[in-house]
């Protein structure tokens, strides 16, 4: 971007690094700097469109505040160090810990923004180089309940259909998410489908943009998803609207489900959810009447203590209505981060190897042990929340965190901070100085997505290649290379790959889902959707068309349970977290755009006009929000998009970290924290000082 000339020298086609939609972008390079973005018109998903985040990619990768050498903390401040010294410090601490306490005193957190190759390297590093299954990533805080729930009912936790199916549906159900904010290009395709004549049913406590366009909006109380779905199922069975033939031939356990949902007659469900009976009946009717109904859901389903059960009930609904296994139907979880699907596929999870092969299965352990030439640990690994808990108990002593910022994004910020402080050694592989990196003992500089080869897997299971546009700054290098070198220092030489493609080939050998893929094939096809193997050489756009991955679709009765913390006298309002179109995760990338930063500079609190009036809050009034765990201050935005009695806050801002307030109460199955509901009190700070 120097002043001399502005000659575009090249444009590199790659994939947007922000969300799970995985849009195609061209990075414009002028004089070895990325100066802008051009949308890819030939990309099958984005078709020449991008959202505000995608358009701002040039800012996100601005070299301005990049970490360019390894850093070691000494007396509280960082000093540059050589790779050799940094590796030595880490190797010594890791080896000592393993000798004293065993490998399970170490933990690795991979990253849902990193490439598949990086995530694969991270789990191989934990399992083969260190000898522990303590490997996780942030799917825990967005979609682990999808994986856990759908694996029980269908046998696979991924989106069942494809983004191109949106235009094939005649009813689109949007459940607990606002794709126009968080997955905007996909959300835009829903708008397009609606305009072309599809019907739209939105189930959300908030009056979202799509809710305002919908044919029917069920504005349920926070945390009453299961009651609502059981209610719909009761209506469906009571009226004989279920897909009998589909249930008989493809599902099991119908009787148990019927018995359970019988406990949820419309009057009771209306009382729990606040949704009038007529609307419940209308929703049950249009969902079962539709020729092809496509259901999509997001974190309004998963971020609850009942997250896994919420997902199971979504699955019950789709199975009973037979709205799955055909084009234009299905259960389609919207993944948050760009590669959260890939991070799961790669086995950056404590319980599975790449391709969801169970660690607990001796046969899969043996297979990986042979291939990796290392005996592999059998002991169950810890989740990321488990790791921070054990750090506080002194059982986990060193951690390696790859490009995640749990200090900002995890629930209960204070807990995470204390846990990281308690460690003997915290190693962070990062691009920039995040809040988490600032707590590290050693920081290793990583290459950004625009500086390396690799693949991302989008929410419709499409594995897509990214390409380097410019070289990495300073001494930064790809995560997989750092991990491989570190593994070598620890005496494990099975990770000395020459390039990212070699890792991908190893993945294709070991994961049946990726078996038929290779870099050249991915390049030729704008990516391939898994499973891609001998049976499906060109990939699979539709899962479960003849049989479910587990055989029969399993109906599992579940019961309503309210959020772990309900409003009371001391904390009278419901609090929920949201995301904004403009920002992404902890904001460390999107907030570098002066334009996006300007939109909502210091975070905001969304409050309903009725609640605002009661507290004499005006637009932009300064407010304090307190929960049993902490408090934050920010400014109010008054909107009827949140219902009365509920306030909402986006989680991207470190100045106003909503996660100081949220509850760490967890889903018992996945340990998913309840980020979507807790109780708070709002104080008008301007009234106080008058």
């Amino acid at each position, binding site marked *: 971007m120097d002043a001399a000339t502005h000659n575009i020298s090249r444009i590199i086609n790659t994939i947007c690094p922000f969300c799970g939609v995985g849009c195609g972008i061209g990075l414009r390079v002028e004089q070895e700097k990325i100066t*802008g973005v051009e949308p890819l018109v030939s990309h099958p998903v984005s078709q020449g*469109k991008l959202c505000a985040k995608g358009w701002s990619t040039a800012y996100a990768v601005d070299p301005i505040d990049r970490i360019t050498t390894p850093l070691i903390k000494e007396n509280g401040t960082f000093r540059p160090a050589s790779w050799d010294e940094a590796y030595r410090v880490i190797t010594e601490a890791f080896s000592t810990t393993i000798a004293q306490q065993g490998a399970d005193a170490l933990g690795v957190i991979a990253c849902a923004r990193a490439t598949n190759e990086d995530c694969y390297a991270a789990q191989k590093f934990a399992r083969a180089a260190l000898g522990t299954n303590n490997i996780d990533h942030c799917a825990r805080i967005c979609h682990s309940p999808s994986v856990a729930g759908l694996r029980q009912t269908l046998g696979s936790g991924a989106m069942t259909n494809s983004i191109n199916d949106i235009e094939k549906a005649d009813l689109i159900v949007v459940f607990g998410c606002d794709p126009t904010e968080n997955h905007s290009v996909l959300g835009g395709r829903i708008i397009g489908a609606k305009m072309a004549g599809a019907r739209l049913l939105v189930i959300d406590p908030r009056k979202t943009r799509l809710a305002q366009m919908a044919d029917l909006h069920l504005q349920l109380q926070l945390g009453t998803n299961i009651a609502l779905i059981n209610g719909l199922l009761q209506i469906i069975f009571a009226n004989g609207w279920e897909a009998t033939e589909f249930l008989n031939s493809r599902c099991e356990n119908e009787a148990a489900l019927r018995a359970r949902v019988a406990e949820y007659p419309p009057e009771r469900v209306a009382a729990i959810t606040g949704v009038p009976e007529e609307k419940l009946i209308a929703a049950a009717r249009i969902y079962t009447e539709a020729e092809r109904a496509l259901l999509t859901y997001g974190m309004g389903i998963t971020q609850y203590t009942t997250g896994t059960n919420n997902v199971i009930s979504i699955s019950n609904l789709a199975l009973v209505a037979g709205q799955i296994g055909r084009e234009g139907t299905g259960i389609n979880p919207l993944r948050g981060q760009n590669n959260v699907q890939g991070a799961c596929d790669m086995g950056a999870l404590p319980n599975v190897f790449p391709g969801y092969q169970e660690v607990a299965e001796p046969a899969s352990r043996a297979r990986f042990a042979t291939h990796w030439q290392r005996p592999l640990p059998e002991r169950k690994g810890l989740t990321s929340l488990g790791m921070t808990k054990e750090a506080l108990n002194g059982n986990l002593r060193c951690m390696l965190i790859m490009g995640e910022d749990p200090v900002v994004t995890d629930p209960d910020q204070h807990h995470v901070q204390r846990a990281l402080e308690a460690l003997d050694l915290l190693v962070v592989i990062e691009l920039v100085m995040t809040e988490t990196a600032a707590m590290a003992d050693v920081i290793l500089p990583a290459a950004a997505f625009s500086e390396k080869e690799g693949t991302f897997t989008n929410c419709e299971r499409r594995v897509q290649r990214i390409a380097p546009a410019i070289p990495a700054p300073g001494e930064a290098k790809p995560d997989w290379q750092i991990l491989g070198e570190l593994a070598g220092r620890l005496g494990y030489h099975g990770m000395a790959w020459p390039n990212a493609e070699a890792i991908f080939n190893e993945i294709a050998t070991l994961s049946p889902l990726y078996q038929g893929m290779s870099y050249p094939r991915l390049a030729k096809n704008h990516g391939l959707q898994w499973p891609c193997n001998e049976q499906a050489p060109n990939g699979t756009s539709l899962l479960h068309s003849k049989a479910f991955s587990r055989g029969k679709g399993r109906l599992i009765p579940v019961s309503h349970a309210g959020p772990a913390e309900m409003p009371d006298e001391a904390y009278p309002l419901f609090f929920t977290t949201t995301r904004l179109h403009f920002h992404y995760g902890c904001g460390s990338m999107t907030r570098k755009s002066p334009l996006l930063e300007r939109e909502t500079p210091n975070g905001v609190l969304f409050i309903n006009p009725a609640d605002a009036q009661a507290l004499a809050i005006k637009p932009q009034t300064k407010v304090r929000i307190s929960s049993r765990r902490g408090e934050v201050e920010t400014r109010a935005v008054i909107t009827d998009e949140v219902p009365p009695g509920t306030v909402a806050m986006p989680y991207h801002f470190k100045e106003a970290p909503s996660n100081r307030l949220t509850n760490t109460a967890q889903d018992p199955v996945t340990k998913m924290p309840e980020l979507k509901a807790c109780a708070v009190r709002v104080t008008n700070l301007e009234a106080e000082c008058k």
Partner: protein
Amino acid sequence: MKRFLLDRIDRLRDHLASQRPLFTPQGNDGSAELNWLPLTRETPPTATGRPRLPTCPAKQFFFPEREILFRFDGNDFKETLPKPTPQILFGVRSCDLCAIAYQDRFFQQDPYYQARRRATLLVGIDCQIPCDGGFCPTVDAGPFVRDGMADLVCHQQQDEGWLLMAQSAEGEALLRGLDLKAAETSRIDQRTRAQQQVIARFPPATHIETGIQRINRAEVPAGQWQALGLQCLACSGCTSLCPTCSCFTSYDRPAADGFERERCWDSCLYDAFQREASGHNPSATAGQRVERFWFHKFSDEYAKTFGRYGCTGCGRCEKTCPGVIGVHSVMKSISAAP
């Protein structure tokens, strides 16, 4: 100005490229995209037949997405005016040329823009077939290159070969050394007639015409703008790709020593575009912002200042808008209003 007959257009392209760096629309890396990129040995021949616009217009060459305005090192301000090397944009279509002329006016006093613009020679091509989604004739921006909009203009003739028109002294000078025959005057009338035939092939654009009327008569109810505003995701795609959009903001960023002021493309669809420090916003709703955008494109008031509408009919906003409120969608909606 002089007129010549030219057998092959790429003979001209090669001749020009031998004198100055030349940029022309092509697929990066052999992909199906179309971007403004430097001519290389791999660049395919100039496409004839149904035209396709490059994804981005040429405005980034003169008004880059990000540009340092000056540096401050703690003591002194350092000027960062560009000193561009002369360059050629080859194969610019009429709509985009009209947009360049529009921005030339807007940035008349802007030394950064003018430095780049003056160093650039424009070679236009007449469109012989309507492009997909374009409606240049409706807004007087094509399909043939308007007089004075380019230094050189190429017109593919119906019988054979090309008519090459030099419209500036600089353009003519660059032709020196190229073996060309002078063209008869009758060729000009043939070209005028050919344009009528091409215009006749454009699909009807009554929705655009009616929409323009409604906007100028303030006949579009606020509620309708609100409904359209609901579909605006504030992505900034339309303003990034619109060849006439010129709004920018500036901000200071830390530099090696001191700071530098960078100016960057802004978008009037952002909430904070007009928000004042007090929090007050004259365009507080998305509906108001969408209305203002289209007012700027189609209002007679702006046409007075700029000599033409702010829309040149390229159709890019329709293609890139994720919320389906590009020019055709919006104009259909407002022209159908009661």
